[in-house]
């Protein structure tokens, strides 16, 4: 008999192999779906790290989506940097920007933090639409992305998605994660036990910014076209909130299930984007009212079933 840990490991390996070999046997449409799923998963997993584990409800993740996308466009197009390097620079600039705004932003708590981060993103949106260097509100074409094959972008997306899940898993099982759990249960008493709350939250905020910047770089390889009003739009965070809430906030599996539901619904109603947002909004409210832990959180509570447990046995 295999131990349950080994079974789980085999399960994960089979799923990973199936996804990685997807372009070899599946129709192109499936490949596209899995890529969109992976990218949404990476973004949602980062929002989950903030809202679900660090108690930071950020409504400004679109700031890093926009920065990641614009950095890719500017560096690869204006300066001829390699595409992947430009995407990494996008992540690094997002980290720098997160550090820069953390001084004023971390003076705000709870709701103030939420609106503060949103206002920062709105400020970027208007700055970029008034900035000649990035083509005002008209935006930029990420022309170098045309040189990449569809499969290459798929693997980049899959990598980002899988890496984001792995990152969260290892963070939660590290000392940092232990601090996060203690903080979530009781902020005051965890502080007296030696958890540096400010530092812990800051690390999460900065990490989330970096991964969001990189993931959105890959996203704009697929989108090709970047404009301030969509790149810095609140719609990004709306999506992440819905994905995480419906799937289960504060669980690793939650964003996985949520992203799947989101992408399926979005594709199914692709001709009526406002209907799919409407439905997601209704589902999210019903979930908060009836099962505040979301789909995976509720399943875990009822059945004690976890695929990726942050706990050490």
């Amino acid at each position: 008999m295999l131990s349950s840990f080994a079974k789980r490991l085999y399960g994960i390996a089979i799923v990973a192999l199936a996804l990685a070999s997807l372009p070899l046997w599946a129709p192109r449409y499936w490949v596209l779906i899995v890529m969109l799923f992976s990218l949404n998963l990476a973004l949602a997993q980062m929002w989950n790290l903030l809202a679900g584990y660090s108690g930071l409800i950020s409504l400004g993740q679109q700031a890093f989506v926009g920065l990641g996308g614009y950095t890719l466009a500017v560096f690869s197009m204006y300066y001829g940097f390699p595409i992947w390097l430009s995407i990494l620079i996008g992540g690094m600039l997002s980290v720098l920007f997160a550090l820069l705004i953390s001084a004023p932003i971390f003076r705000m708590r709870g709701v103030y933090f939420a609106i503060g981060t949103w206002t920062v993103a709105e400020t970027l949106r208007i700055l970029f639409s008034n900035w000649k260097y990035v083509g005002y509100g008209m935006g930029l074409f990420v022309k170098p992305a045309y040189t990449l094959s569809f499969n290459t972008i798929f693997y980049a997306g899959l990598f980002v998605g899988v890496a984001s899940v792995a990152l969260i898993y290892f963070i939660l099982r590290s000392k940092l994660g232990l601090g996060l759990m203690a903080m979530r249960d009781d902020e005051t008493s965890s502080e007296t036990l030696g958890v540096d709350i400010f530092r812990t939250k800051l690390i999460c905020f900065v990490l989330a910014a970096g991964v969001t910047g990189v993931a959105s770089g890959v996203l704009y390889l697929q989108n090709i076209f970047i404009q301030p009003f969509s790149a810095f739009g609140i719609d990004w965070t709306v999506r992440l909130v819905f994905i995480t809430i419906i799937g289960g906030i504060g669980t690793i599996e939650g964003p996985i299930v949520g992203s799947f539901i989101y992408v399926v619904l979005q594709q199914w109603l692709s001709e009526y984007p406002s209907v799919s947002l409407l439905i997601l909004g209704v589902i999210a409210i019903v979930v908060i009212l009836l099962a505040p832990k979301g789909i995976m959180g509720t399943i875990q509570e009822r059945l004690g079933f976890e695929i990726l447990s942050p706990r050490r046995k």
Partner: protein
Amino acid sequence: MLAMLAGLKNPIMNGLLLGGLYGIVGIGMSMIFGIVRVVNLAHGDLVILAAYLSFVTLSIFKVSPLLSLVLVIPAMFLIGFIIQYYLVNRVLGKDMNPPLLVAFGLSIILQNLLLLIFTPDARALVTNLSIATLRIGNFVNIPVVYLVDFIVSLATIFLLSRFFTKTYLGKAIRAASDDEGAAELMGINAKRIYAWAMAIAGGTAAIAGVLVGMTFTFYPHTGPDYLIIAFGVVIIGGLGSLLGTFLGGLILGLAQILGAHFLGPGFQLISGYVILLVVLAFKPTGLFSKG
């Protein structure tokens, strides 16, 4: 120097009048923030919903937008009551996040519902006030609609403050907000009181929506813009007084118009945001808050 100051007369006047409109946009959010301790992220969308309700009313009865308030205020009052009583009340508790996220969901639902019904086209509540200007002395030109906004806002805030000090319901709302437990011991049903408070906030959103619709064009997705304005007003003004909220509106309006005057029209919103962020970072309880 004198010439520059004379040139500033118009922007300052317009900024203050626009600030009056911002005051009424923010007042409902300020009430709910202060009384229920919930940030209603759907407040901007309620304002825009009211503008659309007025738009529908006007297409049936050909009257002045201000007269449509006779129908729009009760409708928004009811919507506010229902939202609080059946949705937000159920998730109130120690954790601030569920009410925030319910309101956020509501905001997205409202925006997309409006988009489905009214298409993304720009709308406006047309009145002959919109194009008239008033000339005071030799220097200052005031768009009449701004003046109407300012006067209606001021009147609403005056009536609200009378309501909170003179009526039983007003006193009960203040009691429930000061100390929920003690108020309940005195026989006040706090949850029901919260629903009344949200209903009144809906009423103020109705007035704000009609004024916004008379002054600017609006779309189904304009709600969040007014949410940030409302939040700016609440933050700058601080919790605690209706007058503070109104002053917050004036400051935000002035900051925007002066920003646009000195830096160009693209910077109108940004100068407001910068003021908001500075206040958030250095005095998050607001400039006019007690304590």
